[in-house]
């Protein structure tokens, strides 16, 4: 992971520049980088989209997006004016070769006018079906290689959004097709969870301290819980969800990334491949859940019904627009997982992710083993398993350590307390948005926080057999009320081992 923030001159080309992600995250992210003086002086932005727009219209639209969504308001006019000079727009369809010629010409102009010296970052903020045509056309237009005028070692980078396939076979095919036009080091598969400050801090917490790592194993940890809960429902994405489901939307990527970060071995260095090698090793150590019985014993899938979330009555999944009345698509998944390796042998890892739960929270809980001898068994407030380390990814990013203390007084009573560290209050400044960090890393050609081809394939290798069992109806699709913490079957999943879900 790079610590040097210097970025070589470059142009960021955003495909799908009129889209929601560009408007809400990418363009404000670039502005914030500029405001924090993290962009190189020689920098350019090219918006590429189907809609017809002039450069000035694109600038006006981008300004509006930044004004609305930047975390720094009001916008700094000096920063904006500087950035606006470097912005151009290319109208074109993603499969239209002539558009890529226009793009190539604009890039050359920017190299000349802004001194960007052939540095290119292509951000593909587009539907999955458009990825191949764009890469094919970039290749055909010679844009997958650095121009001859570029300094040695410069290479264009292509940032690809998930989904990276819909199963192992399609992921392999996508990797094969991309690698036919690009080298692996040019492909930056983005998982925005990895850009979150707390996720990165997981590595610092584990490998930048001495007190935690000795405890971070089967000898001290009883079980791990990973929760990725959202309170929102489909928000107009019913059609997408019907084709995807929660396993592909959250677990195959975000949740497995979290699992890797919390359970991987220490890499030999912070070089991108050293970190990613360890993640791949972790994914390969996951005990496969293959067959109907294994799926029935180790997985829960469910769909939300109507209920109350954050004070509002909400529809059930099947009442959402574009969702089939008899839909079997999961909006909740829970897995009881095991890592078959020396560090984590025998430690269950429970993972749950869902839509329409009680609140939006992503949290990892490392629950420590029970007391070897319950000295305070009969003391009020005493717990058999009092210790946990809670890693809050969002919101209120931070870390809390839970332990038991004596309540002051003449009698012996115990109360659990938490030593709480919060980013927001400890540093007095907002953490950067995940996309800002990842954009900057791509510009610096640092791929540590991006997903490698073999990592994606290892994720699908684990997930595919579960999805196969689910397609066969094992386990049965359950339901849960919107605004709850999920179906009762998920409780039973932990109860088998005498555990229960923490209240996040």
């Amino acid at each position: 992971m790079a610590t040097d923030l210097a970025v070589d001159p470059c142009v960021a080309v955003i495909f799908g520049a009129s889209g929601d992600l560009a408007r809400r995250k990418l363009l404000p992210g670039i502005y914030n980088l500029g405001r924090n003086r993290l962009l190189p002086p020689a920098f350019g932005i090219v918006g590429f989209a189907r809609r017809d727009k002039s450069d000035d219209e694109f600038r006006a639209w981008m300004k509006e997006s930044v004004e609305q969504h930047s975390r720094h308001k009001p916008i700094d006019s000096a920063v904006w004016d500087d950035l606006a000079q470097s912005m151009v727009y290319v109208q074109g369809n993603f499969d239209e070769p002539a558009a890529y010629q226009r793009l190539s010409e604009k890039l050359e102009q920017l190299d000349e006018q802004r001194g960007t010296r052939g540095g290119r970052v292509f951000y593909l903020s587009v539907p999955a079906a458009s990825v191949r045509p764009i890469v094919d056309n970039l290749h055909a237009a010679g844009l997958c290689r650095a121009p001859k005028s570029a300094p040695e070692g410069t290479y264009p980078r292509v940032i690809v959004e998930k989904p990276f396939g819909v199963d192992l076979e399609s992921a392999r095919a996508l990797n094969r097709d991309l690698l036919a036009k690009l080298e692996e080091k040019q492909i930056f598969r983005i998982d925005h969870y990895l850009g979150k400050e707390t996720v990165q801090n997981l590595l610092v917490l584990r490998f930048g301290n001495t007190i935690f790592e000795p405890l971070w194993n089967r000898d001290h940890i009883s079980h791990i819980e990973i929760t990725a809960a959202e309170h929102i429902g489909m928000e107009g994405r019913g059609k997408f969800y019907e084709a995807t489901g929660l396993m592909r939307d959250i677990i195959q990527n975000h949740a497995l990334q979290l699992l890797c970060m919390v359970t991987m071995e220490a890499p030999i260095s912070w070089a991108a491949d050293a970190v990613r090698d360890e993640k791949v090793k972790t994914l390969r150590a996951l005990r496969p859940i293959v067959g109907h019985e294994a799926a029935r014993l180790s997985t829960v899938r469910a769909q939300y019904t109507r209920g109350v979330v954050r004070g509002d009555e909400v529809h059930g999944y099947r009442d959402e627009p574009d969702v089939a009345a008899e839909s079997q698509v999961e909006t909740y998944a829970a897995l009881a997982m095991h890592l078959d390796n020396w560090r984590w042998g025998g430690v269950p890892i429970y993972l749950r992710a869902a839509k329409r739960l009680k609140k939006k929270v992503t949290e990892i809980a490392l629950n420590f083993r029970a007391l070897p001898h319950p000295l305070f068994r009969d003391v009020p407030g005493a717990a058999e398993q009092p210790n946990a380390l809670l890693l809050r990814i969002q919101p209120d990013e931070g870390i809390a350590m839970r332990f038991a203390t004596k309540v002051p007084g003449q009698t012996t009573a115990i109360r659990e307390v938490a030593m709480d560290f919060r980013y927001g209050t400890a540093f007095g400044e907002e953490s950067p948005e995940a996309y800002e960090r990842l954009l900057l890393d791509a510009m610096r050609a640092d791929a540590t926080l991006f997903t490698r081809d073999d990592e994606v394939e290892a994720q699908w290798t684990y997930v595919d057999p579960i999805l196969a069992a689910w397609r066969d109806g094992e386990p049965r699709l359950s339901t849960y009320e919107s605004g709850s913490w999920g179906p009762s079957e998920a409780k039973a999943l932990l109860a088998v081992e005498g555990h229960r879900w923490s209240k996040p």
Partner: protein
Amino acid sequence: MSESGRVSDKIAELERAMRGIWSDTSEQAKVRAHTLNLVAVSGKRALPSFIPLLDEVSANLSARTVLITVDPTLPPWQMNGNVEAVCRLDPSGSRPTVCADRVELELGVVVTKRAGSIVEALTDARVPSVLYVGPNAHDHVVDALAPSVDRLIFDSVELGVDRAADICSMSAGRIEDLAFLRMHRWCDLVARFFDDPDRRPAAQAIRAIELTHTSGDLPGSSAQTDLLVSWLGSKLGWTHRDEKLLDGSGLAVEVTVRTSERQDVRPGTLDSVRVDAEAAGSRVRGVIQREANPLRAAWTLEVDGAPHATRQFAFPKRPDADMACRAAVAQDASSLAREALEFVKSKTRAA
């Protein structure tokens, strides 16, 4: 469903406002701390006296406070809200200013039943949640919140013991009845009648209790008398049958409750207790009578009609905020109030 979005939008607005308070670095440096969520429900008219009490509790315990009232004049699906930080300033300036969030919510009547979902969004699940049922709290809101909190605080003098017992039965969490805490000294003094090992059998043979409480128009003016009898009943294995109170041997225990008109203590407060017991041919009578000085009590014990001991005891003067703080965090004796209220409930069932 047609109103969907309104309340959650308001919650999002409150969350933004809360973040805004803490990300504002223009003011004096402040530390954000909360060791518990204090969810308080109150009637609007009681707010002028209730809010200062809550602020004191919140400042002492570093609690994130969510104060809920109901406004029947609001559109039924509407929720109004406001966020502030309550800070404790160190006059010497040597310690950092410690602040905790305070969220005030005003609910329309339809939203009251969704209070659980609203509060869940605005509290921190990493610390315990305490529900403080204040004066004239709206029943729907309390019913929606009681099942999910870790601890309940209420005052059965304000609520009446039947309602207090109902709320108590909704929650598996700890119960702290302020009326019960306030009469802790009375329980202690009653227990002293039977401290001597020779008189302990008499505790199992109480035949009559006469109690006096100050009058008032609160629903639970007689709550402390009920609680004291129920506390004894739950400890001594008494039962209710056919509107009678029977001891462990099946013999009747006669209970008489009277009211006192004295004005120098709060309404619904115990003023005197007399206990008559008979065991092994010996009659024991214990009397506790609040004196002219309302903070003192005369304690007398008679055996077989003759004075046996006389003492004077002081009632500790504990401000309401201290009592509420204790109720919010105390770890001892919590089951006593629950047992007493369950005993009250058993009376209703028997009737």
